[in-house]
């Protein structure tokens, strides 16, 4: 009994450690994580007629538009024997996962200030739940992609050169890395915007610019060939590597170099850790400044 007397369960104090992740605590709140995921999934398309069909319609129409404009109008080549539609669908599915992870985590503090101001739970649960619920959306997009893939390969001659490579085994790693990078940058932005709102404006058009800089609608090789003096911008962008890798593993087009992959991996992990540090520093007092 006396021994127990000085054993405090936890301490609330202003001191901040660099990384203060209490995994035991996060584990205890795992049910909350799944309930958040469930909430996000079931409430997105409530009270719509088409419901989850929107998960299909959105990528289809964007891909169609992209194909019309970038391939039919601007004549960007997608490689021999690869239908432009499939090429764009691959790039967009990948990009969509990364960008939704980033944009929705970057709002974490602002859009949850109501809850955060009233109850405590490990704040990191919220961005985690976003990343997981987006996974469902990404999964549906992958299914759509697979559907068209099968159609083009088996029912038309357009995709004569499309063949998955062994790199496909890296798909789970690729998804994890995209999630880490999106989460990391998103958490940094969300922490910085609690006090100074300027960054919020950057996210909106910044994401659009980044899409153009991430080889979504063109192959990296084509960019290098046309604008060699600027290609370093595209190459240093880890998202380019992810998208090229995804097309490489599924369609067999694009570049895949181990150096680029390791670089992107390093960037993702560094961004994620940095995001965690900044997020942890912010979560303790953000409610006073938001």
């Amino acid at each position: 009994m006396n021994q127990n007397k000085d054993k405090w369960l936890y301490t609330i104090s202003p001191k901040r450690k660099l990384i203060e992740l209490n995994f035991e605590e996060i584990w205890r709140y795992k049910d909350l994580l799944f309930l958040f995921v469930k909430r996000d999934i079931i409430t997105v398309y409530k009270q719509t007629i088409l419901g989850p069909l929107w998960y299909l319609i959105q990528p289809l129409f964007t891909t169609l538009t992209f194909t019309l404009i970038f391939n039919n109008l601007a004549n960007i080549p997608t490689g021999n024997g690869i239908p432009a539609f499939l090429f764009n669908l691959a790039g967009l599915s990948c990009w969509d996962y990364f960008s939704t992870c980033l944009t929705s985590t970057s709002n974490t503090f602002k859009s949850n200030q109501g809850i955060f101001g009233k109850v405590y739970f490990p704040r990191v649960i919220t961005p985690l739940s976003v990343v997981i619920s987006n996974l469902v959306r990404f999964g549906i997009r992958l299914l759509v992609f697979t559907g068209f893939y099968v159609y083009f390969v088996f029912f038309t001659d357009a995709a004569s050169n499309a063949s998955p490579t062994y790199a496909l085994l890296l798909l789970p790693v690729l998804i994890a890395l995209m999630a880490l990078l999106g989460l990391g940058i998103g958490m940094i932005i969300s922490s910085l915007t609690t006090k100074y709102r300027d960054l919020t404006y950057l996210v909106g058009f910044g994401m659009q610019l980044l899409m153009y800089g991430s080889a979504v609608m063109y192959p990296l090789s084509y960019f290098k060939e046309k604008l060699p003096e600027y290609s370093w911008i595209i190459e240093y962008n880890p998202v380019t590597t992810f998208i090229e890798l995804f097309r490489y593993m599924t369609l067999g087009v694009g570049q895949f170099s181990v150096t680029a992959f390791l670089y992107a991996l390093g960037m993702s992990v560094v961004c994620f850790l940095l995001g965690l540090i900044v997020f942890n520093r912010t979560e303790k007092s953000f409610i006073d400044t938001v």
Partner: protein
Amino acid sequence: MMEKDIILKADKISKQYKLGLVGTGSINDDLKRWWYKIRGKENPFLKIGESNDRSTKGSSDYVWALQDINFEVERGEVVGIIGKNGAGKSTLLKILSKVTSPTTGEIKTKGRIASLLEVGTGFHGEMTGRENIYLNGAILGMTKKEIVSKIDEIIDFSGCQRYIDTPVKRYSSGMTVRLAFAVAAFLEPEILVIDEVLAVGDAEFQKKAIGKMQDISKGEGRTVLFVSHNMAAVKNLCSRALLLENGIITFNGNVDNCIDQYLSAERNDVVDISQYKNRQGKGHVRIIDLDVFNDKLKKINLNQFKSGYDYKFEIKVENLSSQKRDIHIGMSLFSTKGQLLTASGSEYFLEKIYIDGKEIKVIKLSIPSLPLTEGEYVLNLSCKSDLNGLEDFIKDSLIINVENIISTERNITKFPREMIQINHDWSQ
């Protein structure tokens, strides 16, 4: 002798806030703070904070919402925290519930803390009542297993069985609150922090809620920290109380003594009517002072009224012009929701009140056995003259606060939501 079983210990807790807007000024301060930090110096802004008195204008942008708070709570205790608006109660609760962290000091606990700061946090309108119970329970710290084992009790307690599979956005506001309180009531943390949640729902549900609160604190032996302006509830539930004034604990101990000190402390808090700027009327005659005396002819403050006692008001008016005027004084009482409760004018009692140019006159109003029940009311005062009509009108700025804590002495009953207490007697 038995050792005290301290479950929660606050050690020199302080919290500093910056007033005003966040803007370029704050980035300056941030840079300064950072510059001091890399040179290994102490945060320069921690020194300059002032104590947090809402009504006086200070010179510094930094205030201490809490200063040097020390207290201990034993296992099973129910501790009330009382104090005026802005005394730091909610800040303290926010720190306790880990919503924000203290600027200095630390709190150590031996149990999980769950807070009930506002019911319905995290409800999602598109989800059904049942889904929201799971979500809300998890947000408050319950595991799914705990919720599953209690869900029937929760639904039963909320009294929303019929609507439980309907989206919450179709609920009436009262039903939402019922459901939310029901979830919170079945939380089982070692320490429960509660902030004014009893003022919800209809009379039946309030009774149920207070009953449940009593069960939690008395029956189940849970440690509870309870913040309220409702002295009757504090008295009823708590075994000890803390009094917070301007961010400092000024009393820690017996509930009755604490409430007494709280009420008497407010006595010094004099309202200066002459400072009110927001007035209507021509302004040739002004109401410059209002004094209230109780039955012992002791001067009291506007928040020290007690149900059923006799009061005398002395309204001081000044004729700012040089003309002699004939004036009337009017008084009206509103509920805080804006409903007129009663009104009266001096013209029905005194045919003429003459006031010479530059003269100051005192008009007296007496109200025997104040018929208001516990709560806040708005007192409006007006002054009319024969020459100009409305001269002065103090509207919506005098808030009076009525307590009926000495209820047994004068047979004062208290029903929830009741506003008027008529003089009455039952017999057979």
